[in-house]
């Protein structure tokens, strides 16, 4: 590389830090340009192989990390016999219903709340302190309060998940209000629009990309909180399954539960991205 016309020195580091010339049809210097699908596929296969290898070779005891086969076995057994008196599908359904119920509630309340906070200093003044107060607190910390206040039934579980989703939804919608260009807003007003029309016809549609991002972040918080919500007084659910299996050192079931949660969350994320492409094809191009 002695004659290479560089301007940033040599060596591996310098080579990595330099932008490569664009291929035809690409734009030079666009961050993160290129396909990552193949790399991801290789990484997933590699991780599973590594997992299989360390368990097969006996480097790790099955109690700590069961083999992939054992986890699949656990799934098959659970599909057949269920777990602690409820079927696999019931556990899955109960948890999904809790997370999505809370998520929908958080959307219905959080999006208008965030828009209101973005639009009105009064709404911002009222809701900013409580939201910023509870937002950084781990749900586990206020779980006891939720149970004392709302009982040990579904209500406290759904509310706990709801609270963890609400803050990112409201903050996302609030930030989204800023997406509308002032020219778009002025154009609407100059046609005689009311404030409400401006919100409905300009602000809300402009905020959609941010709201979709908030949905993806929010549902992630929801699944994170699920296990906490099912810690107390639950008799079914994936979080409950994971927790009670861990108490009996049934590690294959723990891992199976984790994988099932991950798959549902991943599938939903792709669904949101699919809907996003349909609803806001103009994202980043308006």
């Amino acid at each position, binding site marked *: 590389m002695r004659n290479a016309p560089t301007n940033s020195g040599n060596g591996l580091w310098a080579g990595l830090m330099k932008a490569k010339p664009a291929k035809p049809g690409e734009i030079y210097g666009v961050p993160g340009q290129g396909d990552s699908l193949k790399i991801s596929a290789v990484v997933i296969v590699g991780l599973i192989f590594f997992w299989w290898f360390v368990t097969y070779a006996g480097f790790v005891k099955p109690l700590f990390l069961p083999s992939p086969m054992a986890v699949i076995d656990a799934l098959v057994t659970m599909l057949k016999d269920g777990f602690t008196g409820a079927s696999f599908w019931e556990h899955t359904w109960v948890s999904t219903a809790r997370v999505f119920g809370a998520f929908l509630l958080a959307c219905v309340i959080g999006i208008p709340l965030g828009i209101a906070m973005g639009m009105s200093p009064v709404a911002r003044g009222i809701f900013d302190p409580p939201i910023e107060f509870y937002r950084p607190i781990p749900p586990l910390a206020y779980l006891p309060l939720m149970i004392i206040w709302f009982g040990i039934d579904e209500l406290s579980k759904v509310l706990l998940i709801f609270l963890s989703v609400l803050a990112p939804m409201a903050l996302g919608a609030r930030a989204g209000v800023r997406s509308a*260009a002032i*020219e*778009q807003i*002025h*154009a*609407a*007003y*100059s*046609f*005689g*629009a009311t404030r409400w*029309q401006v919100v409905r*016809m*300009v602000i809300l*549609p402009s905020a*959609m990309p941010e709201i979709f991002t908030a949905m993806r972040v929010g549902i992630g918080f929801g699944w994170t909180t699920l296990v906490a919500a099912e810690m107390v007084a639950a008799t079914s659910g994936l979080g409950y399954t994971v927790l009670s299996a861990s108490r009996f050192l049934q590690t294959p079931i723990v891992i199976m539960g984790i994988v099932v949660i991950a798959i549902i969350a991943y599938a939903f994320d792709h669904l949101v991205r699919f809907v996003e492409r349909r609803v*806001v*094809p*103009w994202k980043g*191009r*308006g």
Partner: protein
Amino acid sequence: MTALGTDNSTAKAVSVKNVSVFYPVPGKPSVHALKNINLEIHEKDFVVALGASGCGKSTLLNLIAGFMAPSEGEISLNGRIVTGPGADRSVVFQKHALLPWLNVLDNVAFGLKIQGHDRKKREDIARGFIKLLGLEQFEQSATYELSGGMQQRVGIARALTSDPAILLMDEPLGALDALTRERAQELILKVWRDTGKMVFFITHSVEEALFMGTKLIVMSPRPGRISHVFDLPFSRRYFETGNARAIKASTEFIALREEILKIIFADEEGAHHA
């Protein structure tokens, strides 16, 4: 000309009377964005505002649009005092004003939707202006797929749908490349002639200002004020000859262009020594 109108107010006109805008800055003397502006825009006038940056031309446009209230003086349209934005004064912005989630037809019909017209009427009216601006093939296109010049046509078509008395154009061609810009100038002149609207047009291009306006106001900064007014013959000449380049290359045009450039350069110099 309604029977209800009284003497002066019957003529369509925008009247800016003794308007000043100032706002306080903590610890400094208050900023005089506009001082004692007087301006009459009459039916069929195409008024162009030109001036060094900070001279308050956009402020003046925002005042007429009703986005801002004057500190002193008053602005009226057809005898009625302007107290806020309204459909009788449509604004065409430099950019970012279209709604990317709507196609061209729905963007043009946007103002009509706000005003509560049903779909059929909206689309009928919108299609008329889409035709006037030569956008028929793009009715169903997404706005972000159009070129800058086409997007600006959509903005103008949209502004016309509410049948405003005046079109307020805030550097509408500032973001276009030179060739597209010249074609757009001619298109806007034709639209102006065919619709008979009053126009208040802001630009940074002296050539554009001279070519398009029937009346040119040159504004100067600190405090923002109208320093010179010119009556212009060139757009009328364009309608007679149809040859825009010949007009822009004529000696009379060039002499006036240099005279105005001198004024603006002097203002900019003043800014650097201030």
